[in-house]
């Protein structure tokens, strides 16, 4: 088995659509998923790099595995369901802590999935037939307004940078890293993954130049600057 060059991890509450997003991107289809047990991953070749994308289980039972999956990750995709405000809250409360083990210059993306279920959802490519939502995806009985606005995701993104004591200037802009997707219609799914792949390549190169994680060459590597106000924000 080829050792991947970099790792991207999908985190988020169960049923927000992590498995569906990955399946949509890798297999170009939307089909019924079974609740993910433990974790699974795909290998994606992007240019000359092999990137592993890990799908994790949102179930509480497997929560403990998250830190290990995130270890050394080059990017983390925090996923919520735009129709379930609680799923966004969970990202901060339960999942953010798991990313402590990720690479120091790990990128974060925040993804609101299932926009097809709400009114001003993704229009292009969206089948408008009013089929009853799947058993697990049944968050919105009929199309209503979106429950979580994009600005809330943007706010979370900025908060994460503060928590991580990263300077906003050194990281991609929030608008660039917050996505609204639909695994069902495919809306923004390619954009999400491919934007991230492109951003991850430099991280991989930096990690390589840096050598194994423990031996940081101070003379060549400049860690991201920390903001002084970070801790009491």
């Amino acid at each position, binding site marked *: *088995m080829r*050792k*991947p060059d970099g*790792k991207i991890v999908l985190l988020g509450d169960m049923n927000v659509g992590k498995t569906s997003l990955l399946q949509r991107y890798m297999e170009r289809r939307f089909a019924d998923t079974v609740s993910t*047990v*433990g*974790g*699974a*991953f795909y290998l994606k070749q992007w240019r000359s790099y092999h990137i*592993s994308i890990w799908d994790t289980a949102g*179930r509480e*039972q*497997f929560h*403990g*595995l998250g*830190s*290990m*999956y995130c*270890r*050394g990750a080059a990017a983390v995709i925090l996923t919520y369901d735009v129709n379930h405000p609680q799923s966004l809250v969970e990202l901060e409360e339960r999942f953010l802590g798991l990313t402590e*083990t990720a690479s120091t210059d790990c990128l974060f993306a925040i993804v609101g999935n299932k926009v097809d279920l709400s009114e001003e959802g993704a229009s292009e490519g969206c089948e408008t037939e009013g089929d009853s939502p799947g058993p697990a995806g049944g968050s919105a009985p009929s199309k209503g307004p979106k429950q979580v606005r994009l600005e809330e995701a943007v706010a979370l993104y900025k908060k994460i940078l503060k928590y991580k004591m990263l300077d906003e200037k050194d990281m991609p802009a929030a608008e660039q890293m917050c996505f609204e997707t639909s695994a069902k219609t495919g809306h923004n799914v390619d954009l999400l993954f491919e934007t991230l792949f492109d951003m991850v390549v430099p991280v991989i190169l930096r990690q390589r130049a840096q050598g194994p*994680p*423990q031996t940081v060459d101070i003379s060549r590597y400049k860690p991201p600057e920390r903001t002084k106000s970070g801790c009491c924000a």
Partner: protein
Amino acid sequence: MMSTKAFTLVSAVERELLMGDKERVNIECVECCGKNLYVGTNDCSIYHFLLEEQSLPAGTATFTATKQLHRHLGLRKPVCELRAASALHRLLVLCDYSITLVHMLSLEPVPSGARIKGAVALALNENPVSGDPFCVEVCIISVKRRTIQVFMVYEDRVQIVREVSTPEQPLAVAVDGHFLCLALTTQYIILNYSTGAAQDLFPYCSEEKRPIVKRIGRQEFLLAGPGGLGMFATVAGISQRAPVHWSENVIGAAVCFPYVLALDDAFITVHSMLDQQQKQTLPFKEGHILQDFEGRVIVATSKGVYILVPLPLEKQIQDLLASHRVEEALVLAKGARRNIPKEKFQGMYRRILQQAGFIHFAQLQFLEAKELFRSGQLDVRELISLCPFLLPTSSSFTRSHPPLHEYADLNQLTQGDQEKAAKCKRFLMTYLEEVRSSEVVHSYKEDVDTALLKLYAEAGHASLLDLLVTENACLLADSAAWLEKHKRYFALGLLYHHNDQDAAAVQLWVNIVNGEIDDPTRADLYDYVVDFLTHSPDHALVWKHADWALQKSEEVGVQVFTRRPLEEQQDGFNPDDVLTRLKKYPNALVRYLEHLVMDRNLQREEYHTRLALLYLDAVLQRTPGASGSGAEVTETQAKLRRLLQKSDLYRVHFLMERVRDAGLPMERAILHGKLEEHEQALRTLALELGDFPAAEDYCAWRSVGREPAYRRRLFHTLLALYLGPGPSPPASASASASAELAVAAVDLLNRHAAEFDAAQVLQLLPGTWSVQLLCPFLTGAVRDSTHTRRTAQVALGLATSENLIYKHDQMKLKRSSFRLSDKQLCQVCHSPFCEPVFVRYPTGDLVHTHCAASRHTNPSAPRPGART
């Protein structure tokens, strides 16, 4: 979940062999090293067996164990663990918290009595850090709380090398290099015992379940995780494989590449590490030990020992393919790469790819099939041979053995479904198109191209023609029969042509055009054949079919002669021969002569005259009666006139004979012109025809390339005709006619003022004409003559002034005087002047007259001016 058969369970040590009828004896642990099998029991005994393996043809094996020795350790405690250190010929025995070293064969303790005390569990380092081959590294969980100890064990001594304390009480340990993988009370960790660095893996609950820590390879461990997960973790604390999903109550795990086996209270489950899927489930009750020893997987209950015999990978793969589980078969094959020698693997893998390709092919999944065929480097003839008769009879191909698939032919594969068969053939077509140009098929190009031709022909595919007109290796006999069968006669012709049988090709096409055989491929086949003949280097063939082509259409047919590349016409198509052949075809004849005269510009009187006569005949046929005064001029007539004007080669007098009384004044005029009979020509044009522009054009035409005086003479002749009463003016309507002529004269003068000598003209003009009428002419003439006068004046002035300059010079020279004495020397010969005669140069130099003369004849003489 479809299952694979990866292992078979066979018995190794029967209950009777081990403990006979002693009910209370239970197996506690096993160890296997080569053929040596050791069993430790709860009554403090060790049994040593020798295992003999007999392979069975189905890929499995049976085992017979023969008891070698049984030794009681003399305590009342169970034997907890046994580990063989074959390099030291020692067996490590954990019993009553103490590890003793016994001889592997005699089972006698080492005389030194070396032992490790206070051990709860032990693990051997299979990736040792010391390079010493006569030493094994052993890790133990110590009876001391939260302590791990590392020992070096030699033949008859042990040495502690490290003691590390852990954050919580360790319950299980595995080791790889410096890395300990530990199950603590609440979590799994990786601990580097050399640096002390610890890395958390993930939490679990030791109260709920027994931990499993199992080294599965270099720097990688398998751990029992929450929710029945088998988690993989590396020494760096990351997971590189997705977890496998076990049941909640797994008690043991083993690895036999590429499988992970797990034991619970009722089953042994087999998962693939390659795709994480569960592959096999074997019912197994009351098992309590599952371990692998150098690739051998042993499972035991408290009463008996069993072996899980892996089926050879190739057999497993074949089984998967047989049940059409292509993906899994390929994953397994790819995963097996490291376990099989390279050359063997490549051959095997290629074959598997090909087989997989046929499975997809049979399911009409052509995209997948193609990729597999390509990467498996399939001999395409395997595919071709599915379609009966596609391979040429001469082909040496035989299908690979054992066969790559189970199908006799396409019909069987599609179960007679014509539509499916057509789809398969379409795929085959595109696939052959792609591979035919590749290096791979080089040695059997004929087979491929012939098959492709047959497929095209059968399907009525247009690419058939493209195939035949480009480089191809289609076999003639085979292809010809097939094309005939499918009535693709035009294509058959192309095939003949490609095989240098043009005569056959053309004959076939002629037959199609004649309607003797039917092939609607080309509606324009006649034109095609003419074009073909035109470019054919086979002259005999052209002559042979020329009549046929001309009979169909003279205009088109004649192209076989006229459109031929020039260099070819030179030899083999003598114009006279062609003309003879064309005698029966007047239109073709005209075309051909035109070609000779106009296109090839041949300067032979005969051709020119003949062409002119043919034109003339045609014109005369069209204009019965002599009323050809030019209502509309036919195309032929235009051609005739053009020829008469342009060519200087035809026999003018001969033509004049024919034209004179034929009522063709225009043509007559041209002929007069050719004979320099300008007055007659102009008379005809201007007076007879009244075609004044034509008359003017005539003047221009005839004077091309002549001196101005000649031109002027022509115009004057015309003017004279307009003005003077002609010798035979038309008797009737003389008044209006002469008025018309007067107007023509005025127009002529006004338009071509420059062409006339005004003085002469003025004398000719009738006195009654007003100045107004001739204003443009007169203005032109006056301006012209003024211009001439002024030019002359300027020239005169210039000449006068030039003359003055010379005079001035002369005066200057005359005015100055000089003295010649006998003291002066000639500038050329440097001797004195003896006579009064001398030459003086404008520079003032004086020389002898003879010296001056010689200077002009002898350039090497010193130039007198050079010194001054």
